[in-house]
């Protein structure tokens, strides 16, 4: 690890303050309360204690990183666990406008990112700093202390959210009961004493009802979630159980999904008897789209109950239904923090219970009494939280049965359609829901910091932003560009040199010039044929790739399992060109990214390199490094940095999925590029998944030396060329109801292409050409307007017919004669080769036979050379003159056939 002491040239010394407060013998680590930092020239050492804010060495000398010290521990070296803060300048460019105002120069933001490592080395500490929390509506002090920093908001890599000073941070000393209440107090304005009492009594009784019960409930809900894929369940488990450091635990704690899970868990348990039949029904409904209306009724309350908080009009009828999808989400957390949130959950349950008991209780009727009635005041946020998690559930329903991707998608899309219909075309509903979903924590925080309606306003403002962001993300085709790109620029990660570029790029992001934009917009397709042509273009990416379901499934589950498991692996994908290898992998990544955006998967990073898009195999390192860290380096340096990165034990990193296209071009004599690519995934903490694509099936055996082939492993997949039925399906699915082709025409194309190569690109190109021919012919004589057999035949002829024959037919008389002479000489010699001199004798004789004036040797050579440049003849270099040897590049039969016609 490289360290720069650029800020202070003098050396700093670090010393523990006092005895270790806690020792872990197993891991040989001790926990301390304070740390002395002394600088060489200065006498007085600076004492830093846990809970204090510190400055951490960063890449920018003027703005060191800010963090709150959570823990001090020593296990050979001195380590810290911190909660990071970020400066505004560390927020990615494209997200800065989300703040909606200009930041105060001394403002910082609480940084929340699950993927960010909170562990740093003590030697990176520069000193302590004063950080002051300000309530969101307070203005920044005009003449604040020079060193003091202020924070109001938190930045969770997606949005700015309001936080309070303390509530977010767990205090280990707080007794259990108060822990369970703490979130409640945060969520709620002023909790009513009686309600709290009731809630607590239930909580305590539930907690005391033994952990066995809890475990049972966990199992139970796990069982009820059996339709969730096992891997997802695993991921939940992992997420729940991996918290060893307070930082992580805190993150989890703040993580809305987990909280929701708790609610769900308890709700599920309590409501299980009541709604078991409904659950059953819902389960059935998921697999059978025919019973959709019921399902959609189940889902509807989440929207309607959501509305009051959005300040939108609502239909009271919808809120009468109990939120039945709740049992879908399984619990996956250790019992201690089940109990921690029981209070919160119970309130939620209380409300649900209310709404169950009084089915006609409409939120609108309740709203005016909000301030006076403490019960409803409690209910309100709980309602909000319920409403928030329900969309999540509804989202899950359409992705959960991953093993049956197609059918599930179909179902979910139908559900959506029906819902939209039901809502009389109010398609905003979904956007609001999704907007809410990513807004979860801030709403609660706002509720805790300010109780009046102002917070509600701030909320809706924030909501507007997040909704807008959502829309933006939705309009963007690849989630990667909107989500993954800033990933490199966000984590205040130790003092690694990698961050240098990402934080203050030498050239701004937009410096890479693009092609200038058009002065006039591109014209849209005007008629059916043009529409069909646009759809048939290879570049138009279809929504799903037909005929590659099995391959998709295999790759998907491979990558997913690696992401969930947090380990690395390689997969080798082969297949002839145009069989959809790259497209399938991209589709897999799109789906995975979608899943991770829905928080079903841990987030991951996708990088793509292509052997053909680099000038030298070693450039692969440079490109990978640049895409990972936005850093430029020479090939050797990049290789070293990557090696360090992947062998560095940093277990909190997110998984990287690397697609290596055209693998065979990365071949070098020593094969070190390939070796590294397949060796990195085997490193323990690398968390690298490599998908390698090449054309040949036996590439590992043919060109790889043993140690490379061994590391590549045996996870292989080969894409077979498309059969004619598949090609036909591809065309029809692309055309998607656009009636431009006759059925027979499509079949002819697909049969022809399947017989030749099975290349889908070829198939689409021929169809495209056929539409052009059809357009031309219909302009001449109006026909049916459909692309018929004749058009397709013409297109096939153009693309597949040998151009040699037409070239020979259009050659001049002497050239044709020369070809005849070549064949005559070949026959005489019995060989497929003759010298020019020999052929020329024949040529002269033929000239006399045809009654043509014999040509001179120079002219004869010129004729011969002309045939040679078209490669109808293969010639030796012309310096051999008369002695140059002549061969035919076409079969003799073809030549005779071409010459016979006229």
């Amino acid at each position, binding site marked *: 690890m490289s360290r720069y002491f650029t800020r202070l040239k003098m050396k700093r010394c670090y010393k523990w303050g006092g005895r270790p407060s806690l020792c872990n013998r197993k891991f040989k680590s001790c926990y301390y309360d304070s740390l002395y930092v002394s600088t060489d020239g200065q006498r007085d050492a600076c004492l830093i204690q846990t809970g204090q804010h510190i400055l951490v060495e960063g890449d920018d000398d003027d703005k060191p990183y800010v963090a709150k010290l959570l823990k001090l521990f020593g296990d050979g070296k001195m380590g810290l666990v911190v909660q990071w803060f970020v400066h505004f300048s560390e927020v990615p460019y494209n997200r800065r406008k989300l703040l909606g105002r200009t930041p105060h120069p001394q403002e910082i933001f609480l940084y929340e990112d699950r993927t960010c490592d909170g562990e740093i080395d003590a030697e990176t500490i520069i000193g302590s700093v004063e950080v002051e929390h300000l309530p969101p509506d307070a203005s920044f002090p005009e003449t604040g202390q020079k060193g003091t920093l202020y924070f109001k908001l938190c930045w969770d890599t997606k949005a700015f959210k309001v936080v309070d000073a303390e509530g977010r941070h767990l205090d280990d000393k707080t007794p259990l009961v108060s822990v369970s209440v703490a979130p409640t107090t945060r969520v709620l304005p002023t909790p009513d004493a009686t309600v709290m009492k009731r809630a607590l009594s239930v909580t305590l009784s539930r907690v005391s009802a033994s952990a066995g019960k809890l475990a049972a409930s966990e199992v139970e809900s796990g069982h009820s979630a059996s339709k969730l894929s096992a891997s997802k369940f695993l991921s939940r488990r992992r997420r729940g159980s991996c918290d060893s450091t307070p930082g992580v635990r805190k993150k989890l704690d703040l993580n809305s999904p987990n909280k929701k899970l708790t609610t769900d868990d308890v709700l599920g348990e309590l409501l299980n008897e009541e709604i078991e039949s409904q659950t059953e029904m819902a389960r059935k409904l998921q697999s059978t789209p025919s019973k959709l209306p019921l399902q959609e009724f189940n889902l509807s309350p989440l929207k309607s109950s959501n509305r009051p908080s959005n300040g939108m009009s609502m239909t009271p009828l919808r809120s009468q239904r109990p939120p039945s999808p709740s049992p879908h989400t399984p619990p996956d957390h250790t019992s201690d923090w089940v109990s921690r949130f029981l209070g919160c959950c119970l309130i939620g349950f209380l409300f649900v219970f209310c709404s169950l008991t009084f089915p006609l209780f409409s939120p609108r009727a309740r709203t005016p009494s909000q301030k006076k009635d403490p019960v409803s005041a409690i209910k309100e946020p709980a309602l909000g939280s319920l409403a928030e998690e329900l969309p999540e559930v509804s989202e899950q329903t359409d992705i959960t049965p991953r093993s049956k991707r197609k059918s599930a998608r179909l179902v979910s899309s139908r559900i959506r359609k029906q819902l939209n219909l039901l809502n009389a075309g109010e398609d905003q509903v979904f956007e609001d829901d999704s907007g809410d979903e990513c807004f979860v924590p801030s709403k609660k925080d706002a509720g805790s910091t300010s109780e009046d309606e102002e917070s509600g306003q701030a909320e809706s403002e924030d909501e507007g932003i997040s909704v807008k962001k959502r829309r933006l993300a939705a309009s963007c085709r690849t989630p990667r560009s909107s989500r993954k790109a800033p990933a490199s620029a966000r984590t205040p990660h130790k003092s690694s040199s990698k961050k240098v570029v990402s934080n203050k790029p030498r*050239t701004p992001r937009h410096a890479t010039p693009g092609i200038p934009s058009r002065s006039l917009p*591109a*014209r849209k397709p005007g008629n059916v044929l043009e529409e069909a042509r646009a759809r048939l273009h290879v*570049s138009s990416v279809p929504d799903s790739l037909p005929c590659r379901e099995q391959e998709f499934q295999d790759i998907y589950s491979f990558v997913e399992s690696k992401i969930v498991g947090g380990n690395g692996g390689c997969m080798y994908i082969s297949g002839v*060109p145009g069989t959809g290898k790259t497209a399938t992998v991209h589709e897999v990544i799109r789906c995975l990214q979608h899943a991770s955006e829905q928080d079903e998967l841990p987030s991951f990073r996708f990088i793509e390199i292509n052997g053909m898009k680099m000038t030298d195999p070693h450039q692969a390192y440079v490109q990978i490094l640049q895409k990972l860290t936005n850093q430029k380096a020479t090939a050797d340096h990049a290789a070293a940095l990557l090696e360090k990165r992947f062998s560095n034990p940093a277990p909190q990193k997110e998984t990287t999925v690397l697609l290596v296209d055209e693998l065979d071009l990365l071949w070098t004599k020593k094969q070190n590029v390939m070796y590294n690519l397949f060796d990195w995934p085997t490193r323990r903490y690398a968390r690298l998944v490599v998908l390698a694509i090449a054309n040949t099936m036996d590439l590992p055996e043919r060109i790889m030396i043993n140690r490379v082939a061994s590391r590549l492993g045996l996870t292989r997949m080969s894409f077979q060329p498309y059969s004619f039925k598949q090609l036909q399906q591809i065309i029809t699915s692309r055309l998607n109801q656009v009636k431009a082709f006759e059925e027979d025409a499509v079949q002819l194309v697909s049969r022809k292409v399947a017989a030749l190569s099975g290349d889908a690109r070829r198939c689409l190109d021929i169809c*495209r050409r056929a539409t052009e021919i059809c357009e031309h012919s219909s302009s001449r004589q109006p026909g049916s307007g459909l692309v018929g057999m004749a058009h397709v035949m013409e297109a096939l002829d153009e*693309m597949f017919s040998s151009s040699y024959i037409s070239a020979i037919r259009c050659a001049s008389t002497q050239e044709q004669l020369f070809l005849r002479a070549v064949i005559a000489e070949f026959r005489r010699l019995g060989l497929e080769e003759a010298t020019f001199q020999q052929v020329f004798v024949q040529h002269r004789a033929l000239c006399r036979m045809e009654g043509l004036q014999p040509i001179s040797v120079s002219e004869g050579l010129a004729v011969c050379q002309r045939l040679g440049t078209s490669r109808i003849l293969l010639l030796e270099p012309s310096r051999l003159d*008369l002695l140059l040897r002549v061969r035919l590049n076409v079969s003799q039969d073809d030549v005779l056939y071409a010459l016979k016609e006229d």
Partner: protein
Amino acid sequence: HSSPSHLSTSLLILRERFCFQKLPSAPVGLESQHKHLLELLKRTAIHGESNSVLIVGPRGAGKTMLLKSVLNELLDVKEVKSNILLVQLNGLLQTDDRIALKEITRQLNLENVVGDKVFGSFAENLAFLLEALKKGDRSSSRPVLFTLDEFDLFTHHKNQTLLYNLFDISQSAQTPVAVVGLTCRVDVLELLEKRVKSRFSHRQIQALSPMDFPQYVELVQQQLSLPQEFPDGRFAHEWNNSVKALCEDKSVEDVLRKHFNLSKDFRSLHMLLFLALSCVTPSNPTIKPSLLLEASRLCTMDCKANMLHGLSILELCLIIAMKHLNDHYQDEPFNFEMVYNEFKKFLQRKSHSVHSFEKPVVIKAFEHLQQLELIRPVDGSASRTQKEYQLMKLLLDHTQVMEALQRYPQCPTDVNWSD
């Protein structure tokens, strides 16, 4: 009688036509190809549809002319002109991808955007260009039209990186591009690597015109005629009439037929007409059939036979000796000693007019013949053997020798011993 000034302007017009390959107003014999290409490029320019196409045809068939006339027509459309970016590459100039990339960057006017950084290295340049092209999309960015002249030479570049990337862009949702390749190789598709080939759309436009002789004659007449807008209408009329008369002449028709039979190439036709035109003077103001005959003779002259006319008697004798050897030994290679022997035999038989030469002098003459490449050593025998015993082959045909002997100025009769 026409004024000399009119004659000189008319000659100027015609010379421009023949020397600068000035485009005819419409492509001759390639109308359907013209329409196809125009439609294709229009779609790229207007709809933002990416395409790739190859124009294949023998040399001088009018491939470049076809492309140029299509581009001219395309750029006349206002909607297109303001939109399209043009990148023209030639396989003979951009001999590797590094140079080609620099040229593309230059022609796209991207080189000054990030200063000299672009030209840092080949790899950076490639990444930069791909990034730039990737950023665009179908509807918003300006389409880029790549024309690759001598397309087949690009296939020899390492890994065919440039072609792969160009075709890949044309098959993906990036900046719309149209890749037009021009080549004279019929087998060009076989040169493409399989994944490059898969990305190519397989559209080929064959620049082959099934022209017959009457059309050819018509073309000649058209090429020699003065345009309607010539300042002096009467002079133009007279000139055109004389051209018409010329094309109807029997001997001219024979000459043209011979040329037509040899090749339908436009360039060789231009050469013939230009040679004839250059003999037109104020005193001799029209193209006469004799001029065209003379031009044809110049064009079809055998260069080796001409070289033989400049040889000395000794060298000629050696050539004849070689021919004898060839006749006796069925084209087997020979060495100097064999030739010298044959030459001595000749001297013994009839040495009336030819002096006997010292052997070194004969060797010198032999070497001179080798320098003129009238004889060449057989492959592989060049280095080790002694000069006199090096195996050689005669690079002259029987007819060429005979013709040379007949035309040789003041050839001694007894040298002519070709019996």
